[in-house]
């Protein structure tokens, strides 16, 4: 399976649609343990990405990912702007000037994105952040792809791991980000960043399924 710049555009469009649809849900999660703006902020960011895509000059995969990263950094604010922005930038850098990418390049790009999030946010697993959804997803993606060589099957496993990781944030005590100020009261709530990460993972799987169907 080869992924093209058009596929990346479809993925970005799908993320933007889902963020808009799930705006209230993400904001409600954030209201419980944060400051009630996660959905609103991400929607503003991805809506701006959508408005910039038609006139993008660099339409390569890395160009589109870097444009997305820079736009998120410039428009989202909060912690999620720098975190997702850095993730897209790092993924774009990892892909470099390749016109199309295969499974291995995609896995490398997603790993670079996770590293970027960890470096910028100085968080590790178990702190009730988006990392708790993303890191297990990438683990599953690597393992399943190594075992089967089937990217689509590996991505399905990754999305399942991502969902489990997201659900696993519910009983966690937050020690990073604004939820950490709640102490014990952060327990019992799903992390909004983990929820938006899951949404993006689902969009990636759907995009790959469409690619596979041709």
């Amino acid at each position, binding site marked *: 399976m080869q992924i093209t710049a058009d596929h990346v555009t479809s993925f970005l469009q799908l993320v933007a649609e889902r963020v808009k649809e799930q705006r209230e849900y993400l904001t409600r999660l954030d*209201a419980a343990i944060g400051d009630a*703006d996660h959905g609103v*902020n991400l929607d503003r960011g991805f809506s701006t990405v959508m408005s910039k895509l038609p006139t993008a000059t660099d339409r390569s995969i890395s160009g589109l990912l870097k444009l997305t990263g820079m736009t998120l950094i410039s428009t989202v*604010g909060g912690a999620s702007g720098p975190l997702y922005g850095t993730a897209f930038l790092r993924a774009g850098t990892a892909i470099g000037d390749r016109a199309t990418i295969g499974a291995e390049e995609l896995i490398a790009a997603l790993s670079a994105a996770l590293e970027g999030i960890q470096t910028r946010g100085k968080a590790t697993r178990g702190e009730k952040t988006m990392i708790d959804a993303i890191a297990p997803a990438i683990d599953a993606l690597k393992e399943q792809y190594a075992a089967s060589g089937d990217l689509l099957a590996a991505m399905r496993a990754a999305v399942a791991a991502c969902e489990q990781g997201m659900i696993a944030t519910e009983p966690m005590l937050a020690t990073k980000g604004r939820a950490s100020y*709640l102490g014990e009261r952060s327990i019992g709530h799903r992390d909004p960043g983990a929820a938006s990460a899951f949404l993006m993972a689902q969009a990636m799987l759907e995009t790959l399924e469409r690619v596979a169907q041709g």
Partner: protein
Amino acid sequence: MKKLINAPENVVKEALAGMAIAHADLIDVHFDPDYIVRKGAPHNKVGVISGGGSGHEPMHGGFVGYGMLDAACPGAVFTSPVPDQMLAATKAVNGGKGVLHIVKNYTGDVMNFEMAAELAAAEGIEVASVVTNDDVAVENSTWTAGRRGVGVTVLLEKIVGAAAEAGADLAACKAIAERVNANGRSMGMALTPCTVPQAGKPGFELAEDEMEVGIGIHGEPGRRREKLAPARDIAEMLAGPILDDLPFKSGDAVLAFVNGMGGTPLIELYLMYNELARILKDRNITIARSLVGNYITSLEMAGVSFTLLRLDDEMIKLWDAPVHTPALRWGM
């Protein structure tokens, strides 16, 4: 939601436009990226900028002017501003002597300011940063993102602004800023929640007989919920942890800052100031300077925060120095 607004998504820009007209003698407002800048920038001194989510007015935009901030970067309501804003503001106020970034300790603010500082440094501008973290309500800094920056930020902006105005270099400005932060402590409480315009609903709910102790300034719930108590008990609840933390000692001279969260009338703030003054007198702590009013707010939240800053002679001199901004003005 009952607010004086046209559309939730336009609140920040329309308020900035109003500020620009109301204080045209002191500030200019730049849009896209949004920042408020002192008239005539850059000035021949260290530039001092701050920023943060909107909804805390008059902080920070109301503190732009002579003797305080050179620029302020307002984000969306309760959302940190983005690096483009801080980078543009840094460039606008850089008079060749470097720029100090005053950052409140919130994950998003710290990340966005860090990215802006990296970008400014890449353009050859000398940037130093100070992160305020004075909120004693955050009990365990190891297991959290660290203490939040709250009331001390206002006092720090005034004092550092005066130092920069008097010709202090960037290293000296950073040093005094760190000294202010190290000697200041705060704690706040809420009687009511507040509603972010784009969320349309309050960030948390409080029953008629409940209060939230240890709140931040973003409409987030605090550390614990308690039954509403008389003002004198609430004053003890806030002052106790502040006094014990530094700790403030008998014979110390302090600046006592009683801050309203936005929805509390001055009559209650002065009543609380009376309680705080009594507590300090009992501990033989002298109030050398004071500030009472709504300066670092959380939209329409009703509530109060106390900030105590242990003063030295230099801080007193800088506090007393002339200042002329939309929200603070004396000596000129």
